[in-house]
């Protein structure tokens, strides 16, 4: 049954690419390398021609949905349109062909991009210092929490062993705390879906290193007490870290630094649309206060007169990337921000407008656990008797990528809808129409969905039980 893998489309001896001829004598490997180091059996890779390769992967792409093909309201992921100018920027040979270890005088243009990108992210967040090194949001979190850890080590404070995490947090937050060597404790919510300030007050003590907050949180609700929360942490000598996955609701409307946050990460692939690429590459750039700036990873871009250079911050946690992080990704974010300028605020406004519009239109049919104003995304629950999973699969048959489901964990049967600013009213109206229709469908019909996708529902348990993860 494996006839659809690339390797099974090949035949021994076929080639998909021609290399230049040898213009020097071909080395005799047996002479120059120890015999036991030589490969005995060739790897069983595909042996195919170029037309077969192109057709195979083009057809695979057609079994995949993207923003280009479908409305993709995947909550917490900011699946907005990806301007193609970004791709053009990263393909310019003067950047694409640049080796990361070329001496600084040879890479002034690249360092200027890095410096300016730092500067733009600094203005947007309100923080004086930025690092572009982390290569995804989760690595931005880890970088941030490692910086907090190093701050306390540097201060000789050995008591700070705990990181607090709200129950709405992304799973990456507690996982990050563990990786950085902290224990984590979960904080509950108040009736509005926000961090329970009284519970926080009772939990914060001299062992608290930081609270990892997401704002707006994963219920799509702005943390109304953010300044008070920051005060509680600061009074205890702890830091407030912000997961910036939801920065698309903040840009131009609120700056995390002014809300009392000490350090945050961005997801440049979300907020600044660099794009997502099927699950990366991303960039989890961080921004922080002066107190934490000396601990940023190595290197950061600085400017000295007209010369740009890379430096290791004084008390750096060290390297988190082999070279300079995902340069191609922050180059795209830099380009995206420049194409918007102060109009970034309109993106925020339209993203929040779209989410609230969907909320208003679904209200009454779907349950809305936190039915105040939402920000750029809204969490809903299906009508009683229906499952989020079934509604999600039903959406597929109508041509919509489902929202994030079963997250946040605090809402049963959660469906987290993030329309983004690049969708038209017509698209939202059609989507809402489909959602209302699905609410009326019989549960039995919904359980059959999808029927029009490349596959029907999968036996996920079998994949784990009879593991086969390679040809």
């Amino acid at each position: 049954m494996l006839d659809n893998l690339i390797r099974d489309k090949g035949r021994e001896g076929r080639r998909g690419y021609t290399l230049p001829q040898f213009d020097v004598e071909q080395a005799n490997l047996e002479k120059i390398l120890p015999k036991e180091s030589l490969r005995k059996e060739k790897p069983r890779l595909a042996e195919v021609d170029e037309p077969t390769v192109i057709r195979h992967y083009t057809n695979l792409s057609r079994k995949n949905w993207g923003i280009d093909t479908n409305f993709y309201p995947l909550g917490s992921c900011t699946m907005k349109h990806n301007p193609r100018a970004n791709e053009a920027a990263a393909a310019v040979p003067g950047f694409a062909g640049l080796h990361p270890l070329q001496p600084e005088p040879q890479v002034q243009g690249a360092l200027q991009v890095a410096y300016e990108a730092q500067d733009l992210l600094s203005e947007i967040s309100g923080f004086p210092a930025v690092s572009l090194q982390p290569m995804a949001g989760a690595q931005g979190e880890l970088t941030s929490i490692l910086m907090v850890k190093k701050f306390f080590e540097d201060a000789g404070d050995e008591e700070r062993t705990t990181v607090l995490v709200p129950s709405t947090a992304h799973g990456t937050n507690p996982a990050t705390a563990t990786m950085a060597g902290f224990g984590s404790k979960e904080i509950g919510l108040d009736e509005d879906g926000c961090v329970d300030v009284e519970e926080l007050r009772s939990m914060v003590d001299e062992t608290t290193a930081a609270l990892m907050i997401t704002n707006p949180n994963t219920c799509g609700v702005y943390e109304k007490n953010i300044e008070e929360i920051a005060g509680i942490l600061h009074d205890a000598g702890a830091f407030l870290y912000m997961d910036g996955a939801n920065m698309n609701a903040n840009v131009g409307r609120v700056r995390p630094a002014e809300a009392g946050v000490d350090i945050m990460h961005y997801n440049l692939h979300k907020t600044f649309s660099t794009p997502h690429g099927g699950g990366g590459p991303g960039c989890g750039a961080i921004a922080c206060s002066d107190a934490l700036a000396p601990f940023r990873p190595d290197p950061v871009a600085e400017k000295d007169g007209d010369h740009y250079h890379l430096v290791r911050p004084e008390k750096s946690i060290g390297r988190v990337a082999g070279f300079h992080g995902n340069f191609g990704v922050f180059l795209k974010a830099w380009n995206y921000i420049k194409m918007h300028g102060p109009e970034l605020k309109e993106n925020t406004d339209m993203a929040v407008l779209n989410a609230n519009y969907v909320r208003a239109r679904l209200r009454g049919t779907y349950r809305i656990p936190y039915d105040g104003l939402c920000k750029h995304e809204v969490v809903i629950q299906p009508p009683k008797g229906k499952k989020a999973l079934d509604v999600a699969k039903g959406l597929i048959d109508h041509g919509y990528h489902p929202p994030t489901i079963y997250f946040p964990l605090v809402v049963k049967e959660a469906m987290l809808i993030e329309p983004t600013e690049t969708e038209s009213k017509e698209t939202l109206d059609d989507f809402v129409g489909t959602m209302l229709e699905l609410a009326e469908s019989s549960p039995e019909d919904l359980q059959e969905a999808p029927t029009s996708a490349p596959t029907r529902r999968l036996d996920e348990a079998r994949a784990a039980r009879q593991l086969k993860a390679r040809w």
Partner: protein
Amino acid sequence: MARFTPHTDDDIREMLEAIGVESLDDLFADVSPKLEGTLDLPPTLSEYEALSDVHRLAAKNVAGLPIFLGAGAYDRITPTAVGAITSRGEFLTSYTPYQPEISQGVLQTIFEFQSVIAELTGLEISNASVYDGASAVAEAALMTARQTKRDPKVAVSAGLNPRYRETIETYKVELVELSHNNGATDFSEVPEEVSGVFVQSPNYFGVVEDVSAASEAAHAVGALAVAVCDPISLAVLEAPGNLGADVAVGEAQPLGMPLLFGGPYAGYMATREEVIRQLPGRITGETVDQDGKLAYVLTLRAREQDIRRARANSNICTNQALTALAATVYASLMGPEGLREVAELSISKAHYLADKLQETGFELRYPEAPFLWEFAVELPDVGRANEALLENGMIGGLDLGDGAMLVAVTEKRTKEELDAFVEVVANAG
């Protein structure tokens, strides 16, 4: 309105009405502290103006010349077909395949990527990629600690890329450095308490190491053996899985990714089946749909952060799907023979250059050590040599800072370039 947001004033008015608020500002009534005024950002640019800036800054870089730098990133040929596939919007603009019914494209390409890595490394299972070679090495160090239930402390060969070494330390793993003789690591004295022993082959100085010796040394103290390998080298060198390595990791950039000033690249990680629960990141597995049709899905999810939270084996979520796709398409185009040819062209040219340099009177740092396409050559003044190379339209090798230049030669370099390199370096004195 701006070009990426479709709403007209009428749309906005109607939508505000449906929501039951008066203005856009009302949508932010719950936000505090509100930003006063507007962001101080440069004025909005048209696409044309923005891309003009890109070209203007790109022109400030020195690019398009023959490159002799390596040290973890290599100037290799990328077939045009790779970019034709990775620019397909269905791949480019999708996200992690949480909904498998409409993500079979990404899922199957991950399955194929895992297969390519498993084949090259001779190990049973690979993940869907991690951020880059450095983070793959760091994640592998943490893996060894979880698997052996020891404190994270690893013995690394002196030839492990120093950037990887630094990243391991950032990830809170203690390092013990093993000494080396003539460029090859001495694995005879591995401390008993380490969780892993790391060997990079070819190592940072280009030297092909004895992976079997590292594996034996690791196993003698109950640690895991981790091999760090350039995937192209595995077309000619024995697969680490056949030399006793428990884990193989490395930088997949040579498989069809542009240099792009250091990223995005992709890290790969492969291991034996017994260690699979400790492997971080996404894994795609085969299954069937309810009609019995073959399909692919993310599996062994109970290792991951969104399920296991604080007890996950890593916090990794987003990986490098698009660059891993580039590697998959590259490997398909090249096939085993093409990969071997890339390796042999590079090896032949590197040895030609090394021989010529030696004939001209220069000495290799490790003249007895076997190497592939990268070697350290002693020069009286590396800085001056690199300046002379640049003046003659070439980007020289890496200044190791101790009187040697680390030179990498790929299949892209021509005999004329190699001859010119020798001549310029010789004349630079």
